[in-house]
């Protein structure tokens, strides 16, 4: 076998996979066609799950601090895993207004991000709907308080004593307390706050961006019928 034949053979065997698995899917997926929100009403506009919050900045902090090594951001359909059966991963099982809002991740859920942090492993829970969980279940009156407390000391609360999440203390600045604790100073659920009698811990801009990003993760909006695989819809039909 000559060098030329070798290179050609290599190019063909590699190129076939390169085209089929990498390049063509990449090109085709760039221009994902918008789906009409309601196929019957042409004026309803496209399905546009706009995310509120500092998605781009927060995603950068999420990436550079390696959260994707322990947390995933994908709710797998039932043929690929049991994620959807959990009560608060794909959405809420018992949302007061909408009932069961759980759904698997769809291609429009990463709007605003350049790289989807699907995740490497699950040491911690999936984060696709962490914003929904925090606002509906953990701390509705002050969602960001829960997240700042978790980032500062993940092991403080009794139900998460065994958490192995690293402490992101370095994202908080210790400041002198003014006339009272600042609005976003770290406080735990028992009302106590770290720091001495005269100091408080206030999130820096990285922490604020990260928490804003996490609170934007509410991927359980209603979806158009063409990508809605929830079983009860089939029953209604």
């Amino acid at each position, binding site marked *: 076998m000559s060098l030329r034949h070798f290179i050609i053979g290599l190019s063909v065997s590699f190129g076939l996979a390169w085209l089929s*698995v*990498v390049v063509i899917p990449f090109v085709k997926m760039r221009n994902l066609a918008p789906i009409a929100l309601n196929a019957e009403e042409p004026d309803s506009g496209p399905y546009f799950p706009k995310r509120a919050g500092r998605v781009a900045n927060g*995603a950068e902090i999420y990436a550079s601090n390696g959260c994707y090594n322990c947390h995933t951001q994908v709710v797998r359909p039932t043929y690929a895993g049991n994620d959807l059966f959990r009560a608060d991963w794909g959405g809420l099982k018992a949302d007061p207004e909408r009932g069961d809002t759980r759904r698997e991740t769809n291609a429009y859920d990463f709007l605003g991000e350049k790289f989807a942090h699907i995740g490497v492993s699950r040491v911690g829970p999936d984060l696709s709907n962490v914003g929904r969980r925090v606002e509906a279940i953990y701390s509705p009156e002050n969602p960001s308080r829960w997240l700042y407390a978790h980032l500062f000391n993940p092991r403080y609360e009794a139900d998460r004593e065994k958490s192995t999440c*690293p402490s992101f203390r*370095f994202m908080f600045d210790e400041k002198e307390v003014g006339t009272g604790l600042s609005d976003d100073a770290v406080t735990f659920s028992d009302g106590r706050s770290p720091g001495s009698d005269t100091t408080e811990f206030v999130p820096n801009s990285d922490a604020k961006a990260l928490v804003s990003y996490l609170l934007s993760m509410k991927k359980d909006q209603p979806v158009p019928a063409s990508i809605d695989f929830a079983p009860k819809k089939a029953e209604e039909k």
Partner: protein
Amino acid sequence: MSSTAQSIQDAKLRADIDRSLRHPVMFFMTSGAAWLAVSIILGLISSAKVHSPEFLSGFGWLTYGRVFPAHIAALVYGWGFQAAFGVMIWLMARLSRQECKSAGIILAAGHVWNFAVSIGLLGILGGAGTGVPWMEFPTFIWPVLLVTYFVIVVWSFIQFRVRPSGYVYISQWYIMAAMVWFPWIFLTANLLVFVFQGHPVMAAGIAAWFKSGLIFLFFTPVALAASYYLAPKVTGRPIFSYTLAKLGFWSLAIIAPWAGMQKLTGAPIPFFLPYLGAAATALLFIPALAAGVNILRTTLASPEAVEQSPSLRFSVAGIIGLLVFGFAGLFLNLPGSSLKLTQFSLSGYGFEILALYSFFSFIMFGAIYFIVPRITRREWLSRRLISMHFFFSVYGIIAVSVVALFGGLMQGIGQEEWIQPWINAATRTYPYAIFITIAWAFILFSNVFFFLHLTLMWLRLGRRSSHPTLLVSHHGGSSPHGAEGDIDNAGPGSADAHAH
């Protein structure tokens, strides 16, 4: 030419080749070993943080999310690539019977590579990582790495092209393939993830494809090239079957480029992509089996060589690692059963360490133990240091295999038990995490000996002897070190065993 005159000519050519390559290859080996030590320390720290999160906590640059990617980056780009460069350059020069005329350029490029990896690592620890698994270096680093890579390996490409007529060795095909595959996957992945704008989930898929490609299309062929060289060379026997070797090579070339996307099963990308990836990864046991059978049958025909020669012992251990790794790829990626359990578990990390350490690194150690005496014209100082290196690495890597193949499955089973609260699944990891920390401790211990030994050789403090340092000592008069002990420029009897 008479055969004796020819063999003297050959011996002289071999010595010339070795001398021309001494500086770049020793540089790559030694600095690679240093990076290995750095990577293992980082791996130990990150593994400790998995079960003891308050260990060294509170510092930004040591947070788990930065230390772990730094560990992988040092292992892959620091140790893996530099060991591969050293081996590729030396092997191709020897097999193509060419002296290296660009040693200076290669050495300079090697320093640039080192510098780039250092900056990249500092970038990751400093909080500028990109968040793309195995591509975490800040984005200005990858073009530097690509250009440096070209400057290092292109001379070997040229050497192959202008080689004298004659037999083409299997190793040469594997080295050429690795040389060409890496820039193909590296350029594609970096352009599609960082430069061209595409769909975020597809970018994640391509990163997963790149990770798999790096393992199967660069590190695997380089390791196979080294073992296809060492096995016949050290045992003095021909490769068991050339046809099987060709089958192994082309099956790798055809199957491996499809693998990788099984990491994204269930994610919103076209359905066929992850399942093709899982199928390809599972089928890769075919080239693993082909190469494994071939090399093992070659070496086990002379078991005393495996027992005595450090290079061969490490290579055989590496080939056994290849077989474990190949079959792990089969068992961990079955779409109906194990894939959903292992997709987001320790199995992934264990699988990668199986590939990078139990297979690739062991064979690289074997190659280093072979090559370094020849280019420094000194022998290894102590067989006990080599034995320590071997056994502690083996202990460590067995622990990692257990975790990968068993612990990951257990963790995955816990994850799939959706009725239980998440903390149940999370705490299942605990014992396996401790196991991994112990494994890294063993491996660090073993590599301390290795690095020490290698540095002494680099400083030309090895034994001046033409008797190789073997793992088995012969007491009494038939000691290979000769009657006088260390300094022994013995005659023909010892030269035969050493005429490589």
